[in-house]
């Protein structure tokens, strides 16, 4: 009994282990308890032999049933498994194909990107700011700058190519880039030809998992652009000087006219005065010799004075001299102002008195405004400013001429002149120059365009539309200042220039020749 129960338990466990099907377990467990009864029934019914045979047959039957069921089960499982696996297998092989294709595509597109990157004149690079070595640099660098790309993998090589004077600024720019700012920096950069070129770099931080100080950037050779910019500035200066030349000619011709008139008068008058003097002497000599009475001598002299209108001469000759001197002063002032205005092109900024610059610019431009506007200057006590004086004068001139035109458009037809007020003052660390006019104001719709190059509201031929664009570029880019305006329709416009009292003037990079290495 115990034996059979034990046997049944083993079979159940074996079957369970084999088929992992609880139903088999239930079956066996179901049969096992009946087995002894089968024993008893059979023992009652037959012989021991028969009983034992029957018992064995029963067990065989059970085992066969179990095995049959197991086979069926396995077959079914196998079928299910095959069914489930086939699509997976297909997916797998498809995925594999895709991976292959994608990899090829990636390679191609990477190649394309690289080709794209490296075919432009802008050199891409990635720099480890810690070591100063480039972790990547576009292959075009050799074509563009002459250096083999490998050189830039050397520690600090990129940095060593930057002009020594520009290195601090360049380092500063990298510092800012590491601090997650987008930076644009112009510096002189040594090419393999041993020549410095103006290179503009756009730098930004390159995130790195290992927290390395890494930046990426593009660098473009802008020497030609710089030169063109310079030429454009120069051309605009010439243009405005040309336009002013007519006015200046007028301003000089007028005093020359009256100086010449007065001098002619003085020349004629002196001749007459001399004649009168000689007559006096003759009369005196005659009186001394006793051949003429004092009364007659007086009468003769008076007649002589009358004949040459001595009264008029005496009255007007001193004034004529004064007027001539005034005229000469006027001419001298204009010539002086022209010289101050057109300072020979400076390579380095220098200290300048902006109040004096304003006055000389006003003298130069006088003919542009004097028929349409009165000019009032309220010049405050301002410190000297380090600047490119001639460029700043140009900017001032453009703004003043602009104000004069604004006023003249309004004054056209009216008898009253407009007013241009120029004020200088110190505000915090800045020198503030404001130029206010009583023109018609700037219409809303063009307010955002007035600083655009070539934008003009004037008729063709009257202006190139460069004036305010250049003024802004000079003030903002060259001097780190600001140029803003406030305008009110029908009331006028105020342009406000703000310059740092000790501005950080951009280093002049106009003359690459100066950067030649010896």
């Amino acid at each position: 009994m115990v034996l059979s129960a034990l046997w049944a338990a083993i079979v159940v466990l074996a079957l369970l282990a084999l088929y992992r099907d609880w139903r088999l377990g239930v079956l066996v467990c179901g049969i096992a308890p009946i087995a002894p009864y089968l024993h008893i029934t059979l023992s009652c019914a037959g012989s021991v032999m028969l009983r034992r045979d029957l018992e064995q047959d029963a067990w065989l039957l059970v085992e066969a049933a179990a095995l049959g069921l197991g086979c069926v089960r396995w077959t079914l499982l196998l079928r299910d498994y095959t069914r489930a696996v086939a699509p997976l297998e297909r997916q797998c092989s498809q995925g594999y194909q895709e991976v292959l294709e994608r990899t090829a595509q990636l390679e191609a597109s990477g190649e394309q990107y690289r080709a794209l990157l490296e075919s432009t004149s802008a050199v891409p690079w990635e720099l480890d700011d810690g070591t100063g070595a480039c972790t990547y640099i576009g292959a075009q660098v050799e074509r563009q700058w002459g250096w083999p790309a490998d050189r830039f993998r050397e520690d600090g090589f990129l940095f060593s190519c930057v002009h020594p004077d520009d290195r601090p600024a360049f380092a500063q720019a990298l510092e800012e880039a590491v601090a997650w700012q987008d930076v644009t920096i112009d510096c002189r950069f040594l090419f393999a030809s041993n020549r410095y070129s103006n290179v503009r770099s756009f730098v930004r931080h390159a995130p790195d998992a290992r927290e390395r100080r890494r930046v990426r950037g593009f660098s473009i050779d802008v020497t030609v652009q710089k030169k063109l910019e310079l030429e454009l500035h120069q051309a605009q200066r010439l243009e405005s000087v040309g336009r002013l030349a007519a006015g200046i000619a007028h301003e000089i011709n007028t005093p020359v006219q009256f100086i010449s008139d007065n001098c002619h008068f003085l020349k004629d008058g002196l001749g007459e005065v001399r004649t009168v003097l000689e007559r006096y002497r003759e009369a005196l000599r005659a009186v001394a010799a006793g051949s003429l009475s004092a009364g007659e001598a007086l009468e003769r002299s008076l007649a002589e004075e009358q004949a040459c209108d001595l009264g008029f001469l005496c009255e007007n000759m001193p004034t004529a001299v004064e007027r001539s001197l005034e005229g000469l002063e006027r001419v001298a002032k204009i010539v002086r102002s022209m010289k101050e205005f057109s300072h020979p092109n400076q390579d380095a900024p220098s200290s300048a008195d902006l109040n004096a610059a304003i006055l000389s610019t006003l003298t130069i431009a006088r003919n542009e405004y004097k028929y349409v506007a009165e000019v009032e200057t309220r010049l405050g006590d301002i410190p000297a400013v380090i600047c490119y004086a001639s460029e700043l004068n140009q900017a001032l001139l453009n703004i003043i001429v602009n104000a004069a035109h604004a006023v003249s458009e309004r004054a056209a037809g009216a008898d009253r002149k407009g007013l241009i007020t120029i004020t200088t003052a110190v505000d915090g660390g800045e020198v503030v120059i404001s130029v206010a006019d009583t023109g018609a104001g700037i219409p809303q719709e063009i307010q955002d365009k007035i600083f655009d190059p070539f934008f003009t509201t004037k008729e063709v031929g009257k202006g190139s539309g460069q004036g305010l664009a250049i003024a802004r570029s000079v003030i903002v880019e060259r001097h780190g200042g600001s140029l803003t305006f406030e305008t009110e329709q029908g009331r006028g416009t105020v342009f406000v220039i703000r310059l740092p009292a000790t501005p950080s003037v951009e280093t002049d990079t106009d003359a690459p020749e100066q950067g030649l290495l010896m």
Partner: protein
Amino acid sequence: MSAPEPKQILFVDDDPAILSGLRVRLHRFDSRWAMYFADSGAAAIDELERCDYDLIIADVRMPGMDGVELLRTVSERWPDTIRIALSGYAGEKQVARLVPYAHQYLNKPCPSSQLEELIARCLRLHELLPDPRLRALAGSVRTLPVTIRAHTELQAALSQESAGIAAVSGIIASDTALTAKTLQLANSEFFRLARRITNVEQAVGHLGLGVMRALADSAGVFWRGAEHESITLRLDELQQHAKTVAAAARSLARDTPHGDDAWAAGLLHDIGYWILARDRQPELLRCLQLAVAEGLPLQEAEARLLGASHAQLGAYLLGLWGLPVGLVEAVAFHHAPERVAQAQFGALEAVAVAESLCGTDDAEIFNGRSVPASGVGTHYLKSVNAPFDWPEAARRVEASCRSVEAS
């Protein structure tokens, strides 16, 4: 004999220093000229309303009413006042604006005695035309009608970038009004020319096509005339006559240094008729009727009815416009050359002989009215020492007449 009444002269400039300079400089002319000084356009107008001025000299650029505006007002309200512009600087555009209104132009600074000479010369013109009403008539002329054909051709030629000086001057030389205005400008002090020009090609070359374009674009400089507006005379026929006389006069004077003068004088000699036909139609008609009725030469009829002939009127205008004295004289006396004592053959003589010989039928010009012709004869050639005899003169004139007709 009492001294002639001083001429009234008004100076206008916004710069008081200029006025006081002129005042002392011209002080020595006080006995001959009564000079007044105004410091603005408005003050000048007040002054003009106060009394009659013979001559006004005005700055061009002034605040408020500028010189162009002032001279324009003067040309309308006081046309007999001679108008001179004295400018510190003027660009092409300003010149073009001034041209219709200023008789003469001076640049600042103007050299010693130039101003005085110009004033004296202008005032002497009064002797040529004593009647102030005729002076006003000539003074009000801004420009003369240009024949439609010449006007169209000139516009077309100037609008081309590649326009050549020769082509443009060819068109100008075919028209009396264009020629007069071009010579006026070329001879003005504005363009600072040392010598006087009577050759149109030189004048155009000197002025430059830029100036010619500015003039052509400026309203009121080259005024396009209607072809047949006149009941008294036909402008196209008159133009043809002027061209014929010009060509003939040039061929007569070709061996003398006065070829260009003779040509210009020939083209401009009847310019007085342009003025009369434009503004004095009824009077001109009456002169024509008188001449026909009494068998008088037309210029004598004009002298009797108008007080001066077309020759004097035309010469006065050309004088106002600052054309060379020889040219003015040739125009003034082309009907009476004997009144000018000349020992040599020049522009005046060439025009007088050319007109006598060219045989234009006046009836064509004056709408069928035949007026008695007057002219010089064989004896005249001898008296002026002409380098050829009468038959030779006739041959040359005949040849030029044919060539003008052919063109």
